[in-house]
């Protein structure tokens, strides 16, 4: 038996979770840059919603007591539109997982000596970066929307969008991992995402919703993410962190994000296993 000496005795390497995560995320970013149609698609839909709904509903919109009232619907809907963009961009970035499995790329990654955590985190980080690039384009409109917010609030908005994107990408990952076709993934995600978004106070204030809807909205985690996202538009960091409702939303959102990521890692760690043999 001879001892193998590949590449003149170079040692065998293994990637750290961080390196593997960054490598996989970078790939998603490269793919995104090379597919400009994706940018147009994910930016176009929320913008269209915002313009059409904003123009149509502004005359009849009454914010009630929300944020002191007296705002236009386009202003109210702006954070909701940001959330919608992040939701769609994040969730649909995970559709590549199904393509990767169909086209064989995923098995190459699964056979590499990388931790399963890095496979989840690579996809989540990649999807989040892609969503945040798109969100940044929409965030440039803040000064033109009549919002007068400081840098602290801008940072809070960006961080909240990133957290929201992590949750949405993680959720998309969980669903995509079990899906066999992109068409099925589209169907399931639209069925889940649209109600989540409609009933999240993105479209209308929680306070003015009928009692029965209000109950549903309170159990919708996206509602709490919207509270986190909307708050910095109307107050600085100090005011936000002094608000019990904001802190509650922060706790719930963090919990949901951790739960989703834990579910993703657990799902990926589960390997196909042969049935146990009968004894004897």
């Amino acid at each position, binding site marked *: 038996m001879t001892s193998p000496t590949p590449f003149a005795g170079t040692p065998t390497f293994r990637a750290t979770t961080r390196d593997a995560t960054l490598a996989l995320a970078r790939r998603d970013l490269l793919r995104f840059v090379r597919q400009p149609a994706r940018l147009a698609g994910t930016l176009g839909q929320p913008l269209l919603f915002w313009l059409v709904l904003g123009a149509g509903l502004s005359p009849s919109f009454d914010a009630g007591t929300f944020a002191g009232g007296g705002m236009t619907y386009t202003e109210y809907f702006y954070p909701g539109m940001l959330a919608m963009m992040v939701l769609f961009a994040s969730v649909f970035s995970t559709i590549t997982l199904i393509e990767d499995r169909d086209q064989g790329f995923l098995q190459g990654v699964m056979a590499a*000596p990388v931790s399963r955590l890095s496979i989840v985190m690579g996809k989540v980080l990649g999807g989040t970066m892609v969503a945040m690039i798109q969100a940044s384009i929409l965030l440039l409109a803040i000064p033109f929307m009549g919002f007068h917010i400081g840098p602290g609030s801008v940072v809070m908005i960006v961080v909240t969008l990133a957290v929201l994107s992590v949750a949405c990408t993680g959720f998309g990952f969980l669903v995509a991992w079990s899906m066999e076709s992109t068409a099925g993934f589209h169907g399931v995600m639209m069925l889940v995402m649209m109600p989540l978004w409609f009933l999240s106070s993105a479209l209308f204030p929680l306070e003015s919703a009928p009692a029965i809807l209000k109950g549903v909205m309170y159990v919708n985690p996206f509602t709490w993410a919207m509270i986190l996202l909307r708050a910095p538009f109307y107050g600085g960091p100090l005011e936000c962190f002094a608000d019990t409702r904001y802190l509650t939303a922060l706790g719930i959102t963090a919990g949901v994000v951790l739960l989703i990521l834990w579910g993703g890692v657990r799902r990926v760690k589960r390997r*196909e*296993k*042969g049935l146990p*043999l009968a004894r004897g």
Partner: protein
Amino acid sequence: MIRIRGLSYVYALGRSREGRTALDGLDLDIAAGTMTILAGPNGSGKSTLFRLLSGLALPSRGSVEIGGFDLFAAPAQARALLGVVFQSPALDRHLSVEENLSLHGALFGLRGRVLRDRIRESLSWSGLTDRLPDRVGTLSGGLARQVELAKALMSAPSVLLLDEPTTGLDPAARRSFLEQLARLKREREMTILMTSHVFSEAENADRVAILSQGRLLAHDTPAALCGRLGRNVLVVNTPSEERARALLPSVAERLGHSCVLCGSEIRLELGRDEPPVPLIDAVLDSFRDEITGVAVREPTLDDVFVHLTGAGPGTSPFVPKPQMDLAS
């Protein structure tokens, strides 16, 4: 280098508690620095074994050691020794050749200068060094396969696993790919385990392992396997597979031998010391106008495979009624 003991895998069939056995207590040793071809008919367990060896699935029972590491107890250490070329492409068509290799290298912890050097080394045997910036989607099937192999080499593996890597390649690309494999084995003393349906690919292997119904039927050198059969083979050539299929029952009945369809050929094993001339005469008497030739030759690995598994590639043997044995 690879030590497989009592490896079994049972697939679940729907919700039933019963399953289908794909591997049944397989024992196999692959020595370091050798090239082994794993052959077997469809459903013999080759793909299942490949999935287990590449760490994509866990067995029902049994163990696999790669370079001394237990693949199922210490998967990361064992997988770090492996380079894997899957049957289906595992490249990102949207990325360039360099980006694909770079990504794969990064998954093995390579970066900076080591990564750049490794990309160059991994492609040094191929003609692709000037195609690094090209997107994989623009490459031909043969070139994409070379990138697959280069990708597997990025980690400087001690063991190279290849699952029918020449599928879909034209004969020239196939020959070139196999030559590169032989060179890699020779120059880098790599241990290579490759599944294949094409027996001409096994002629230059050190060992051939034949699987059927999840069990190892034979594992030896190609010469020893052919020698083990020890009987010559009568081959009746026909113009097409359809014609061969139509003639198979008549030929078997006329010659009183069990015959096997292999493409446009009908083959039968001669008995030990059986003179072939009466059989050739019988074929020519009865089927002269329907065949393109008849010949006797020494057994090949293809014949060994047919003998051991009872089937040609994608076919079943045709066994005639015993009273028609003209050869006796």
